[in-house]
């Protein structure tokens, strides 16, 4: 469909573009504010900070105890990726290839954790994890993050598996490949792009997952985003610039992985389109 060329249509198109530009401008302004503040000495009633410094980053590194937080974040994210892949990919295979009784129920089970907002199921989940003495530990955080992670891998993987010719698997079986070899030597190599996309999406979502981590983390199992929340929450204790420096560390970490991810997936996949 080509765009209309009448004056009315042009004015309408222009209005829409102004709106989008205004949104993007504010978004850029918001992020630029954080970045500039984190490298400014002080910023008071002027357009830009008075001078530039890198000392807030040193402060974040030492006083916010950034190194242990980063280690926890890496551990949580790595465990979530590994486990959601190990549980999710085989399940996606069964969902894509087999029509079994209860398949629709299973599909609903996998859709619900993605559709229900984390804060809604996070409170009952945290309650159960506290009773199992898992909340407050890194395992509680990992388990909580797997709840949206596993279904996400399944839903992303199903279309990738469906497009593989089933005759390839049949041939492997004819030549005597068991389940292990079928996965290890046939399916996983063929599915690498899909697995990569799914796991990268889980990675980005886990780094940014605030609610579930916040509800289940203890003092030693905070990830970067939760530590950032506590820093903002306790604003006034520390200079604003150091909180902004921490926000920049978080932004850079997330954006780096987002950019890598977007090389493999379409941005709309991050929204997790509700497929029917």
């Amino acid at each position, binding site marked *: 469909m080509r765009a209309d060329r009448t004056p009315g249509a042009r004015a309408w198109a222009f209005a829409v573009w102004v709106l989008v530009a205004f949104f993007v401008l504010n978004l850029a302004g918001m992020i630029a504010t954080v970045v500039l503040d984190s490298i400014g000495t002080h910023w008071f009633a002027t357009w830009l900070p008075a001078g530039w410094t890198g000392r807030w980053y040193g402060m974040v590194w030492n006083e916010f105890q950034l190194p242990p937080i980063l280690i926890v974040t890496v551990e949580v994210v790595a465990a979530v990726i590994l486990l959601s892949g190990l549980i999710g990919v085989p399940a996606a295979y*069964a969902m894509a290839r087999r029509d079994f009784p209860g398949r629709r129920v299973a599909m609903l089970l996998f859709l619900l954790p993605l559709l229900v907002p*984390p804060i809604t199921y996070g409170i009952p989940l945290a309650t159960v994890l506290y009773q199992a003495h898992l909340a407050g530990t890194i395992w509680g955080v990992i388990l909580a993050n797997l709840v949206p992670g596993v279904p996400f891998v*399944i839903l992303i993987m199903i279309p990738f598996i469906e497009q593989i010719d089933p005759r390839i698997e049949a041939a492997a079986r004819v030549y005597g490949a068991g389940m292990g070899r079928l996965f290890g030597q046939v399916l996983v190599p063929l599915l690498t792009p899909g697995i990569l996309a799914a796991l990268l999406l889980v990675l980005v979502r886990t780094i940014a997952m605030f609610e579930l981590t916040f509800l289940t983390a203890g003092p030693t199992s905070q990830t970067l985003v939760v530590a950032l929340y506590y820093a903002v929450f306790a*604003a006034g204790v520390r200079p604003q610039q150091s909180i902004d420096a921490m926000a920049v560390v978080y932004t850079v970490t997330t954006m780096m992985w987002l950019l890598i991810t977007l090389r493999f997936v379409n941005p709309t996949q991050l929204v997790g389109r509700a497929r029917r």
Partner: protein
Amino acid sequence: MTLLVLPAVLFILALFVYPFLYGLWLSFRPNGGGGLANYAKFFADPFLYTTITKTLMLAVPVTVLNVVVSIPVALRVRLMRHQRLLTTILVVPITLGTVLVSEGLLTYLGPRGWVNRVLLDLGLIGTPVRLLHNYWGVFLSLVITGFPFTFLLTLSYLTGIDPALENAAAVLGAPARERFKRVLLPLLIPGLTITLALSFVQAFSVFPSAILLGEPAGATRVISIAAYTAAFEQYDYSLASAIAMLMAGIQVIIVLALLAARGLIYSGPAASGKG
């Protein structure tokens, strides 16, 4: 082979379904009083029951605004050649999440932030506008994270509609307005209903920005704050479960109402285009 699905199903049953059922059971086992004491307490205490209206006051206008603005923008963007650039920019606030957006807005919308500076220098206002620690701070944060989400969903439903249908209408002489009203909109309604439902549910569960940018003891004391406070500040897991169940219940009611409304105004295939 089918058994490969079992670990995932068991996992979701153990960590999603069971906690929900346990929470439901726990909500009827109050720390004191009869089985319905938690619910009675919630609806007797204005500090608790007003959280529902406060949350709705935020979630409904934000959702309607985001969806209404998303439609014309998506209609335009779908014709665009470099769509990917815009969708990439818009996915940024979704990925960064509400905590980072809150932190950014705290300075950006602050009395000395760029927004107030621009308005002051343009002479539109005499004194800085208060945009933080009130309703508007939370509202704006929900627009910044919610609009891209709504827009990307709308765009994906819109691009799923076969362009041949609109071309046919154009060939038959239908002007843009008629093409939208008679061809695109009816095809878009199913997807739009889901977009509306998902956007609402997201906005209704607003949490960190209501604390960081809002007035968590007053105008933006949303229902998730009430549930969190009950669980992690008062350690009353039973009351917290009851509030979480009410939160889920309201979301379910609104989503069902939206789906029923769609059924009333539209009957046809549930999925449009490439589904």
